[in-house]
Each structure stands twice: as structure tokens, then as C-alpha cells.
């Protein structure tokens, strides 16, 4: 299990980047009763059989490490939503993309803490690869969004410790306002 909701967000978006998505939209919304996380990508997608297996903890993409049989990313998320009066859905089409959506009861005692949203977003914005990521954050009616292309344009690159730190400062300033 992951410690926080931000960790689940990191894990799902990392899947999209590994699936070579060009465009990813990640949303984190907090309402009165529920917290909703959704990730939509146009990566390689999965066929029906792979989609079913992806929710099995003893299956992983065989191209990663041939001898390994454990893939806990999605199973962790499914288990967490089941424990927290939440919901989980995933849709995927090979060659088109994947969309994951889940909710957690905001007042459920077993719902993990939100965790480091700023860390999660900064890390996801600064991964290797040529992808656009938009992160949309809504909390009780207030909202902000960050796009990777905007950060790249402002900072020139997102790979050095200096740029990553400035991106973090920027995301933190937005998170503090909501």
C-alpha cells in the first residue's frame, strides 16, 4: 500500500509516461464528501486481456524485468479505494490510450492522507521524455492548473536541480493559494 493519495497519483501518471503518452491530463479534486483522482492519457493502451491482468498483483509488463511477476501499482489503488468507500474504474484501448478514475471517501478514517501534492506534481513534471502533462487541482471550488509545456517554456529545461527547484517553488505557490 502507498502512504498517501499523492503517491497513488504519482504511480498512475508514471504508468502513462511509461506507456509513451504524448498527452496526459491528471486531476485531483476535493469535494465535501469525496476526493477524486483521474488520469487520462493517449499512451499505447492495453487490449482486454492485458487490462484484466493489469489489476492482478502477480502480473507485470514482461518487457520490464523478464523474471519478475509482481506489479502492484493498480492493485494497490483498487485495494485502497475498496477500503475507503470509494470507487475505481479503468478504460483502455490499444493504440488509443487509457483512463483511470477513482474516488475516496473524504471523511473515511481509512482514507490515506493527501500527502505531498507539490512533490508529486514536481516529480511528475520533471520525468524523462517528451510528453505534455496538465495537472488540474480543485479544492472546495478553488482551482489551479499547471502544464509541463509552460514550465519548460519558462525554465528552458526541467532536468537540472536548479530548474526542478524553481518548478517546485512555482507549484508550491499555486498549491498554497487554494
Amino acid at each position, binding site marked *: 500500500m502507498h502512504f498517501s493519495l499523492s503517491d497513488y497519483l504519482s504511480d498512475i501518471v508514471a504508468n502513462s509516461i511509461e506507456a509513451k503518452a504524448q498527452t496526459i491530463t491528471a486531476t485531483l479534486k476535493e469535494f465535501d464528501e469525496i476526493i477524486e483522482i483521474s488520469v487520462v492519457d493517449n499512451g499505447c493502451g492495453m487490449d482486454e486481456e492485458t487490462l484484466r491482468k493489469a489489476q492482478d498483483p502477480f502480473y507485470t509488463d514482461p518487457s520490464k524485468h523478464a523474471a519478475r511477476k509482481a506489479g502492484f501499482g493498480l492493485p*494497490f489503488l483498487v485495494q485502497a479505494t475498496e477500503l475507503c468507500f470509494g470507487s475505481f474504474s479503468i478504460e483502455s484501448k490499444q493504440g488509443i490510450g487509457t483512463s483511470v478514475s477513482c474516488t475516496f471517501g473524504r471523511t473515511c478514517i481509512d482514507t490515506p492522507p493527501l500527502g505531498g501534492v507539490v512533490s508529486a506534481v514536481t516529480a511528475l513534471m520533471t520525468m524523462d521524455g517528451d510528453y505534455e502533462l496538465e495537472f488540474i487541482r480543485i479544492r472546495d471550488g478553488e482551482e489551479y492548473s499547471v502544464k509541463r509545456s509552460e514550465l519548460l517554456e519558462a525554465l528552458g529545461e526541467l532536468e537540472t536541480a*536548479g530548474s526542478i527547484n524553481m518548478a*517546485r517553488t512555482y507549484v508550491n505557490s499555486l498549491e498554497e493559494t487554494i
Partner: protein
Amino acid sequence: MGKMTLADLKAMRDDKKKEIDRRETDKAVTVIIGMGTCGIAAGAKATFDAMIAELNNCDVVDVVVKQTGCMGFCAVEPTVQVIANGMPATIYNRVSAEIGVRIVKEHIVGGKLVSEYVYDNPSKDILAD
């Protein structure tokens, strides 16, 4: 600090760039942090945060920091690889935020391995890949 705009962010970058341009720098150091499900579950984001902060504290802002998926060393996450000129490419294991700070100070700035956290016995099935 109040809410920043993208123009504020660009101005911050231009200020920093002037500082960096005054110094002799090269991107000779690369840090790679494992950020798969296993790394995230073991606290790799806290390590990432702490190392970025310490690199900026120590004013070595030109270090390239990359993230990667599961490197296959799930049992000893968070793992961090450091590739620096004049030093052996090194994989560290069980790198908490505190150890990440030590790696920046001792390995990247000081040129000395943090020996007790060097991962010198990697998973055999991964080495065979």
C-alpha cells in the same frame, strides 16, 4: 510567497541563469532516482525532495536529476544512482531523505563515497537481463 505567475517563474530563472553563467559549470554529475511503485512506496519522493533541496543549498544547481521506473531492486528502495566524473558509477540503497542529503554533501560535493549505503550486491536476475 504569494501566488506566482509564469512571468515570475521566468524572471526567477533569468536571475539564477545570470548567477550560473558567471561560474564555470558543466553537467558532469547525473543523479537517477528509482520512482517505480516500489520506490514511491518506500519514500523515494521524500528522497527526491531532500536531494533537490540540498543540491540547491550547496549551490550545485547544474546537477542533472533523473527519475526512472523500477530498477529491479524493490527490496532495498529507495535507490539512487550517482554518476560523477572521477568517481565510480554508484548505486546506493535504502536512501532515506537524510541519506540523500549525505550523498549530496559527501559524494557529489565532497567526492567521497557514502560507503555504508553503497549497493554492492544487486539482484542476480536483474544483472543477467
